[in-house]
């Protein structure tokens, strides 16, 4: 969904703003000037480094900040010989290197600054952070997240190729509770999601999901509960549905489309129209139905994946 997709991205950006520290975004290569420099010398520094402002430092401690605006003011009043110490903004707003980025963002917003000097807990200047630095770091981090997701997807879809063994099988087991219409379908739903994560083709996933769901509903409706076990191999998926229910007395009859022994309340739920087993038949590549009256039913379903 587009709407939720956008909000998810925003949430991730917000998370990043809390996770990432100022020191990860800041520039460490610092150009600084001392309070004794003249404004003419400061102008040279800006020109050479192509920057628009610098912190003012005296014996490792930050004493002020000076920007191109201060320079323009000095130019208009012909005060280029005055010192940086006279024209700078003293006691500037700073931010600690170990603070989360969101603090820097809110400081930018509060003061309308484009940059903030970064100090450590000993009040020594260690870097400078700009809005651009923050945007770049967040974008880079989103890209890393995206690559990780791509790698995860690739790994999922190449899961079997990456495993070297004579036999590989992943087994998913689910308990199915009798008469539980609220939870009915959870086994099939979970299996569907797992198969999708394993990179199985959507058409095959759909067939497995539909057949498993029908088998699950049969266990919920007609039995006292049972199990669904799916075994995923490189070239086939086998799903077994087992129950200790009343059993089916005439399997051939049960396989006929439209044949049903469902009570009225089941039909009111949209089931019990005698299409379950024929539907399963239509989805599988192979099926075997074994049942003993009074003992239970065992349905084997096989799907080829290649």
């Amino acid at each position: 969904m587009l709407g939720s997709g956008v909000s998810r991205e925003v949430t991730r950006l917000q998370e990043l703003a809390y996770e990432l520290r100022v020191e990860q975004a800041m520039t460490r290569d610092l150009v600084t000037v001392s309070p004794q420099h003249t404004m003419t010398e400061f102008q040279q520094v800006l020109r050479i480094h192509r920057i628009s402002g610098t912190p003012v430092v005296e014996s490792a401690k930050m004493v002020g900040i000076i920007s191109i605006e201060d320079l323009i003011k000095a130019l208009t009043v012909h005060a280029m010989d005055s010192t940086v110490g006279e024209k700078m903004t003293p006691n500037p707003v700073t931010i600690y290197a170990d603070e989360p980025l969101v603090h820097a963002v809110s400081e930018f917003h509060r003061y309308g600054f484009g940059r903030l000097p970064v100090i450590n807990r000993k009040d020594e200047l260690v870097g400078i952070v700009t809005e651009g630095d923050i945007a770049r770091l967040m974008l880079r981090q989103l890209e890393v997240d995206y690559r990780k997701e791509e790698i995860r997807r690739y790994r999922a879809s190449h899961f079997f190729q990456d495993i070297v063994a004579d036999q590989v099988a992943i087994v998913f087991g689910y308990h199915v509770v009798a008469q539980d219409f609220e939870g009915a379908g959870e086994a099939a739903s979970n299996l569907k999601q797992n198969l999708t994560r394993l990179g199985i083709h959507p058409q095959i996933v759909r067939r497995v999901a539909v057949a498993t769901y029908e088998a699950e509903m049969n266990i919920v409706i007609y039995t006292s509960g049972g199990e669904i076990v799916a075994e995923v191999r490189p070239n086939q998926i086998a799903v077994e549905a087992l129950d200790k229910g009343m059993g089916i007395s005439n399997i051939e009859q049960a396989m006929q489309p439209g044949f049903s022994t469902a009570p009225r309340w089941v039909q009111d739920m949209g089931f019990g129209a005698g299409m379950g087993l024929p539907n399963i038949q239509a989805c599988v590549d192979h099926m075997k139905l074994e049942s003993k009256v009074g003992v239970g039913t065992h349905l084997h379903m096989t799907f080829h994946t290649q």
Partner: protein
Amino acid sequence: MKLNKVLEHIEGKAITKNVDLDREVQMGCGADLMSDVLAFTHNGTLLLSGLTNPQVVRAAEMAGVEAIVFVRGKIPPPETIALAEERGIPLLASKYTLFETCGRLYQAGLPSCGLFELTLRRWHDAFGG
């Protein structure tokens, strides 16, 4: 057909929150029998149904149904809406009957989801051809 066009043709409303109305549906299927839903639909189907219990959403999820329209002015119970929101399946509502809601969409060009091989075989057995 995009969901916003679907809503326009059936004069319907969205039930679930944050429905992406740009979502496309390829075909329609009107059914109150969940086994029919599982048998007849394909990935990308718009399901139209008068049944509102949570199993409709489950069946839709298994069958790859893209969105569900509840007909005859039926509003599903909260558990159905909750499951649909969790599974990301948009729920829409139409005040018209199943017949009329389907008819409006079919007339507007939304095709049917086609025939089911098994029932088709029985048709041929009964009537030939």
